[in-house]
């Protein structure tokens, strides 16, 4: 399983899984894309636009995931697109610098299914459990 929806009284809480940290980031991106547009699966083979590169640094791995998703979210809303990961490189530069270099594929869409205000830091705690990386994510919707 890549991700699942969990209960939350007002916002959207999801649990994200990945065999590697990189895969967890890829699946989190796909989960957010799926919320923004359920048509993403059909869009995968068409409407593809040139790739976009982003590089982002944060103080820990949990912040890196949230900051990365918020970066994509802002791009999505400005450019009216959803994004998926084409390639990803995750590095721990030092104790307080975690870095992600990502190549994104963008898919223009006419409308969003959901208006995500932001990806929050609430409940984000990336851990390895029974050989699978996982974390919860709360989206403010």
């Amino acid at each position, binding site marked *: 399983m890549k991700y699942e929806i969990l209960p939350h009284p007002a916002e959207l809480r999801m649990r994200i899984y990945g065999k590697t940290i990189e895969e967890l980031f890829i699946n989190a991106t796909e989960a957010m894309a799926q919320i923004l547009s359920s048509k993403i699966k059909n869009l995968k083979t068409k409407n593809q636009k040139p790739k976009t590169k982003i590089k982002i640094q944060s103080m820990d791995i949990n912040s890196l995931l949230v900051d990365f998703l918020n970066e994509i979210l802002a791009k999505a809303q400005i450019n009216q697109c959803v994004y998926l990961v084409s390639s990803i490189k995750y590095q721990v530069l030092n104790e307080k610098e975690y870095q992600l270099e990502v190549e994104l594929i963008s898919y223009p869409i006419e*409308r969003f299914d959901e208006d995500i205000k932001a990806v929050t830091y609430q409940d984000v705690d990336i851990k390895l459990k029974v050989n699978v990386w996982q974390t919860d994510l709360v989206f403010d919707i």
Partner: protein
Amino acid sequence: MLQKKNLTKINNYLWEIPKSFRKDMRVPARIYVDEKMLDSVFKDKSLEQLVNLTALPGIEKYSLVMPDVHEGYGSPIGGVFATRVKEDGIISPGAVGYDINCGVRLLKSNLSVNEISSNLDNLATEIQRIVPSGLGKGHLKKLDIKELDRILENGAQEIVKQGYGKEEDIKNCEANGKLELADVSEVSDTAKKRGRDQVGTLGSGNHFLEIQKVEEIFDDEVAKTFGLHKDHVVIMIHTGSRGLGHQIATDYIRLMLRVMPKYGIKLLDRELACAPFNSPEGQRYFKAMSCGANFAWANRQMITHYIRQSWERVLSNQRPTTNDLRLSVLYDVAHNIAKLEGDLLVHRKGATRAFPGQPVLIPGSMGTASYILQGTKESEQAFFSSCHGAGRIMSRHKAIKTISGKEVIKDLENKGILIKCYSLRGVAEEAPMAYKDVDNVVEVVHQAGLSKKVARLKPLAVIKGE
């Protein structure tokens, strides 16, 4: 784990979690609910989040939640606390929320329900047509950055200056629709890009426009002062600072997380990331947040203009001709904001400022009543705050899975309420059964003395985001 036995009953509408409950608490925490509601507040993380607020540096007296409380992130929704800005008090973007200055404006008409009933559908359709209400939808024309900067600096006043409103609109708006400390240089280009086409747009989620009638008046004298008459039509606008405000919050929560160690601040919940109010970072956020607040007031002012256009376009054609098509602003008030009030910085996230005498606007959930209250001197106990709505009890996801949008529309139509929404999913998400009973919530703030009931409003037509 917090349990009922940990609470001290102060009176029938107020409970306290003592400072001794958790080691890091600097002050107690307070909960405004009645006996019937008390059990429900233990069902999610609301109280844990309320207790987290008490650990913030410089917090004054106690943190508190209103009866419409539910779990949020960082602060619970319905959360209020104040910090001492002359000492070590902090400012926290997460405790304001992503939708900076989400708030409510109420427009009064001089017409009764009977005078508009034959045109109600036309009115709702026209308003829905002219105010973009969809997901991420904006206007075709994007403002250039200079135009946007003027709005961020001057709020609703800039929109009125451009001819989209009246001077009296500004006078009847919290802070006259403009926070003076706004500084556009503290707002990122990304935030500005997200807001360029969103002035005059409703957005989605629980935001709505509603044509309502004054169904019941509780206080004749105050209603008269407010210019409210039974069976007269009013229009409620509920929206905020859209993507621009969301991005300001995102940018500054990230910044605060980085600088907290510098100020020796350790918190259990990163969503409460903060900095001392008087630090460079605290001041930067306050200036940026003021821009977000100004954008929201400008947004509600522009929507007011569109509603006035629709109102006149539809009703000026009706026969017999109606003479008085004025729509005047009763009040416009924020419920997600941090405000300097005396020596305190009051954070309200899902709570309405309620100064003595001030109209307090409480939107209900879709298809249920809304209320006009009046602030009281007694609400000083809650840093002059009141509730902000009904408060969710069912997740949006569960609502979509278990409630039929078509059924909701049918039920509301049977009650004489018209719904205009492009998406059945959006209707299901905001169905009345996903919320607490607003009548109970308002009764608690009334009985607790935080604000007094003036009038109850019944929806006639709801125009909502998807």
